[in-house]
């Protein structure tokens, strides 16, 4: 059962002479526990696709199905409460962490649970247990501004996975980190995504980060032009590349 199926997603900004087609028939399907990277040059539509899938900035046309249920979006109509969808099933990890500065580290993680109706006491207990797993337990009661960049991104990952979402969308989660810290965060995302059976879609510019991903989608000019599986052996020094449907 695919965790998410985004079918022929098109996004158009502006009208008439100012019209810009940011996405054109982009199709992507990700299973639970699968790790997918979105790559491509700047302006290729990676972040736009992520925003469209999360319904933060819905597409102009296409269809989005989460957990093989009814479509959550179809042909310019959002068919569900988008915030409820993001609260319960999809989570986003930001490039710039976007932690809430006036909440403590533990409260930042617990926030997601309390929004889903978990009592504050239980939410804090689960938040602390997860922070312990991520070696952040000693920092649980401080504010995020006092954390290092790597710690802040680990906290952002903790916030994303704490309520076991079906889909995690990560927008260049390692862009603000050096290579070593970036790899550590990607490893963490990979491990937690598999453990918690979440489909992870991560936008990245950095080819060194795609090691360990199940599939890479390459985008150019708003289209997905190819996809490949980095874990498969390369043939004649080249990755096995197959065109994706609908693009």
């Amino acid at each position, binding site marked *: 059962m695919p965790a998410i199926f985004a079918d022929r997603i098109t996004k158009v900004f502006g009208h008439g002479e100012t019209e810009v087609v*940011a996405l054109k028939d982009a199709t992507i399907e990700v299973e639970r526990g699968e790790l997918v990277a979105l790559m491509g040059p700047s302006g290729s539509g990676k972040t736009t696709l992520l925003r469209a899938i999360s319904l*933060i900035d819905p597409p102009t046309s296409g269809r989005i199905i989460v957990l093989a249920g009814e479509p959550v979006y179809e042909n310019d109509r959002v068919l569900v409460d988008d915030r409820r969808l993001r609260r319960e099933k999809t989570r*986003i990890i930001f490039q710039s962490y976007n932690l809430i500065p006036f909440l403590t580290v533990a409260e930042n993680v617990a926030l997601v649970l309390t929004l889903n109706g978990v009592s504050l006491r239980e939410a804090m207990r689960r938040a602390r247990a997860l922070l312990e797993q991520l070696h952040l337990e000693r920092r649980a009661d401080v504010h995020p501004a006092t954390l290092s960049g790597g710690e802040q991104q680990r906290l952002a990952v903790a916030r994303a996975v704490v309520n076991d979402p079906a889909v995690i969308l990560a*927008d260049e989660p390692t862009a603000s980190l050096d290579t070593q810290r970036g790899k550590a965060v990607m490893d963490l995302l990979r491990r937690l995504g598999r453990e918690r059976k979440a489909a992870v879609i991560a936008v990245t510019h950095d080819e060194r980060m795609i090691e360990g991903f199940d599939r890479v989608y390459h985008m150019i000019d708003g289209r997905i032009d190819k996809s490949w599986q980095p874990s498969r052996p390369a043939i004649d020094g080249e990755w096995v590349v197959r065109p994706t449907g609908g693009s």
Partner: protein
Amino acid sequence: MLEPPPSSTAAPQRRTTTRPSACVSCRGFIYTMTLEKTRDIATLKVVGAPDRTIAGLILQEALTLGLLGYATGAVLISGTYQYFPRRVVVTAFDQFVLLVIVVGICVVASLVGIWKALRVDPTAALGGGA
């Protein structure tokens, strides 16, 4: 040397000076604080916080600030009123009315902030990129 104030026949009464106009500035303050938190509000929307949660946070903030300001003002005035040359008699009822006014101003102030917060675009939480 300050002249002692004329005695009042209404007891118990507290003599103090107040500046209710200070409460009015609360409105601008809450509005500005909401503007400063635009990115955090957008983040809350992205993580799925419903409008009522966001509105509740702003209302709580406004009421907390208003009540703290009221309490601080009451303590300061009760300790310093004798040093003021002109005084206004404020009864317990007056203080209660002032409290109601403070709460009312805070609620109105928060409505302006809530109105602004509910119009924050969730994409404001995201960085650039394509």
